[in-house]
């Protein structure tokens, strides 16, 4: 399974914070994972949208594999 997490404004817009997604045979990019779960609401998400895979910064074009945790969130503001 692929675990998908959302934070901050992304979580508020999509209305959930964690989902599981069954893996597919064909390789999927983070953008495909987002489309599969966000549907038409993907258009409302903040831009730029940041992506992390397994707790490391990644991009919408990064490949997601079975067992990965992929996260979507707005630009961060730590410190």
């Amino acid at each position, binding site marked *: 399974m692929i675990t998908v997490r959302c934070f901050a404004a992304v979580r508020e817009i999509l209305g959930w914070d964690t989902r599981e997604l069954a893996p597919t045979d064909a390789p999927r990019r983070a953008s495909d994972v987002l489309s599969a779960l966000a549907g038409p609401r993907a258009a409302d998400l903040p831009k730029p949208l940041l992506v992390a895979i397994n707790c490391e910064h990644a*991009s919408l074009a990064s490949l997601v594999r079975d067992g990965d945790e992929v*996260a979507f*969130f707005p630009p961060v*503001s730590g*410190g």
Partner: protein
Amino acid sequence: MIIRLQSEDFDPEREAQMLDVKGAGARVSFVGTVRDSARDRTITALEIEHYPQMTRAELARIGAAAQSRHNLQEVLIIHRHGRLACHERIVLVTVWSAHRAEAFAGCQAIVDALKTRAPFWKKEISPEGALWVPGQTPQDLG
């Protein structure tokens, strides 16, 4: 290197003393606090959300990168999350080095990286309503 994520407040000097770094010569600390106004609004509180597992990993990467690049003897990062009232402390970054230039550069590099890489999101609470603080978008993420 010490990395701590917590909802409670901290005493910057006590935390630095506990590390008991000897002979470093120079120590530079940054303390960030909740401002009482921002974007022309009065701020009464700040709600800080984060991504716990990633925050811990990312702070460790940020600290380790600064430690080796700026020749730091020791690094301490404490970042709070949850709801903080205005004027409360948010974050402490303290670094130790033999020389002052490295200590300043190392501390500033960590604080800059927190702003662009550490997965925290802040919501400013004001009498007019709540607003997410716009984050910074670095060019080199991923």
